């Protein structure tokens, strides 16, 4: 085993301990402690946005700017792939 491998194993073990600890210490599955923000959205999605689908009202209204970023990511990916596969000579 080379030095690089030993370092990698140590890194992985540390990260593993972190992740497993955090998984064990999360709140019990299905019983989040605080839900005000989401409860507000569920209660008001029909009254404020007129949408039946709570997720759509979050995606396009409450957190619309994230969706703009998400659309931009896709746009970036298309531009990147076309740029990378372009012809290099005219």
């Amino acid at each position, binding site marked *: 085993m080379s030095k690089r491998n030993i370092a990698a194993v140590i890194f992985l073990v540390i990260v593993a301990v972190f992740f497993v600890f955090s998984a064990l210490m999360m709140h019990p599955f299905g019983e989040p402690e605080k839900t005000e923000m989401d409860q507000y959205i569920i209660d008001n999605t*029909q009254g*404020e946005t*007129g*949408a039946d689908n709570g997720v759509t009202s979050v995606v396009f*209204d409450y957190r*619309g*700017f994230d969706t*703009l970023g998400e*659309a931009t990511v896709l746009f970036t990916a298309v531009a990147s792939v076309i740029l990378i*596969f372009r012809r290099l000579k005219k």
Partner: protein
Amino acid sequence: MSGMSKIVKTITSIAFPFTMIYGLYIIAHGHLTPGGGFQGGAVVASRCAMILFAYGSVWTMGKIKEKHLSGLESLGAIGFICLAFFGLIFGLQYFFNNFLVGEKGLNLIFNQLAIGASNINTAGVLPLMNFAVGLKVIAGLFGIVLVMAYATSLKEGK
């Protein structure tokens, strides 16, 4: 990538309109049922990718070029960001304001804000944004798949 056998091509052609309409339905009803612009767009784009596999990338590239798809995607993105910019001009005058719902202005058909009143024409800009994003996702995902398939099918060094 050359095309597949005749059976695959025929089945793809027959299934094409149904899956297309399914995807468009998901986009149009994004604010009412599970789904939305991204999900419906992915359905339509995967349908287009299926044609790509059935008929081969060279054939598909002859029908539609990646620059057209790129332009279409730009159009969807511009539509989306313009709807966001309209919030600055109308409504509460904030970026990303849902200016079509509320008590003033263009509220004749869009303002049914109550439990159970939602319909295809409610929710203000949400359906419009769904359409813009749907267009973007269709063009974007299909463009990525098309360019990658076409470029990798060519001989190296071209």
